């Protein structure tokens, strides 16, 4: 139940985000969510899109180096302590979070967390055992589309 995230290398100068967004827009691909990780020297644009395979092909054709990473999307209650409770699951385990980002969507009271785990299968097992809703690509798309 892992979803596919696209990562793009961006140079640290103005206007770098515009072109990849345009490429996706022209093909009618929706960006579900994104995060930009940046350093003083460069940035990495991470995207979750409606059709990752088509998006990858288009971006590669446009000259981008695209990295596909399997990440885990979890639906949680959008209330204080929602994330903390989830993180407790990994306390003392061998699962490590490389990075994460979060977004809310149309459904009231719910949020989606995207995790990059070093051991995604172990993480999914723990999340499921705790009764949490781990989302598939198509679900992420629909949740946000509501």
């Amino acid at each position: 139940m892992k979803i596919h995230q696209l990562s793009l290398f961006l140079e640290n100068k103005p206007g770098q985000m515009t072109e990849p967004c345009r490429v996706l827009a022209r093909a009618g691909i929706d960006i579900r969510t994104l995060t930009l990780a940046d350093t003083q020297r460069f940035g990495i644009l991470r995207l979750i899109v409606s059709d990752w395979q088509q998006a990858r092909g288009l971006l590669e054709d446009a000259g981008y180096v695209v990295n596909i990473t399997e990440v885990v999307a979890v639906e949680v209650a959008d209330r204080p302590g929602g994330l903390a409770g989830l993180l407790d699951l990994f306390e003392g385990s061998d699962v490590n979070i490389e990075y994460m980002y979060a977004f809310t969507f149309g459904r009231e009271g719910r949020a989606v967390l995207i995790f990059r785990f070093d051991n995604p299968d172990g993480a999914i097992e723990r999340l499921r055992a705790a009764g949490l809703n781990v989302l598939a690509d198509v679900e992420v798309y629909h949740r946000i589309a509501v």
Partner: protein
Amino acid sequence: MKWEEPGGTFHAASAPDYIPRPQMRELQLARLRAVVRRAYDHVRHFRERLDARGFTPPDVRTLEDIAHLPFTTKADLRDTYPFGLFASPMSDVVRLHASSGTTGKPIVVAYTQQDLEVWTSVMVRAFAACGLTHGDIVQNAYGYGLFTGGLGAHYGAEALGATVIPVSGGNTDRQIMVLKDFNVTAICCTPSYFIHLLERAGELGVNIRELPLRVGVFGAEPWTESMRRHIEIEGGIQAFDIYGLSEIIGPGVSIECPYHDGLHVFEDHFYPEVIDPESGRVLADGEEGELVLTTLSKQAMPMIRYRTRDITALASGPCPCGRTVRRIARIGRRSDDMFIIRGINVFPSQIETALLAVEGTLPHYQIILTRVRGLDAMEVQVEVTPEVFSDKIGALETLHDRLLYALDQTLGLRVEVTLVAPRSIQRSEGKAKRVIDRRNLSSEARHEDSPTIALPRK
């Protein structure tokens, strides 16, 4: 002035800079025959090449016969690393120096006691041509170490009878303090470093023009007339171009005289030719081509027809200074892709070696050279490839740091590394344009507003 030749020969008139041409050619021929014999007898690499041509040392009958001898290239030095071209046993070698080669390994050069004496004597003649004498106080800001610049200038200035301050390179504020407090009258360094010194002195409120400094002996990198103008006006000094290379001896192969119209070659020790770099044909005086040098008196490491890759032309006409030795035009460019940064020779192939070692494959890259506040700066832009790209920041930062470390280790030089987007470096139709040199452009642009003042020369 009396001149004592190393080895004891005594010339009554003056330094060999002034001897009549026929006498010089006679001396050159005798020394050429001896050095070819020496290389043939002691350097297998050279002997095999001569044998392959069916040429023997006695076949050198005139100076023009030098054209029959094979060239020596940087590749020969690399292939025989480290000591393969030595013509003296190590027991007779009293000093080793090294400079960068085309790949990771340096080029090693050797000197016997007599070689060092020759080197010192040509440096004395070089300093004398710049108007320096035993009363001068010389701040030697060339780096001391494997680089030939530091020790070459040091012993030359000492033998001249000048007072030498062996301050070596770097530590700019201390350089300015020494310049100011020690009544320095002459400085040796790279021209770009002197421009840096001028700028830093300005920041510290020190006006170099008001100091006793009157002469700068600048070399180890190409520089322009506009840089000279800037240096002379801002520094209130006369700037001299000195040329040399480790493979031949180090600094002291040739020097400008006060007329600044080309550099006099110390022809009694270094025989110059200018060739067509494509065909290898020897060109007439006045024609532009690649400088080829033969060491006429070197013992430890004779260089026969060494291809310097420096582009110049020989001038044989008389110089108003009275020296009879021929001059080479100032060197502005090279016939290969080597460039010089802060006095250090760098080949793009060295950078490729480092990139390849880190990434496993060779990414597209480009070298950008700039001059920031008078100092050369080098940036290596490396395209991010699918093989090395990661969604994790840490992985890319590690890659960046490993590239930086590998380049630092290979070049012995701090450089900047920038990861750039794939296909962002322009592809050219033929040979990739690996080096973008913006140094001269920026210096021209910066100094074009400087007033042109006619300095007392010609």
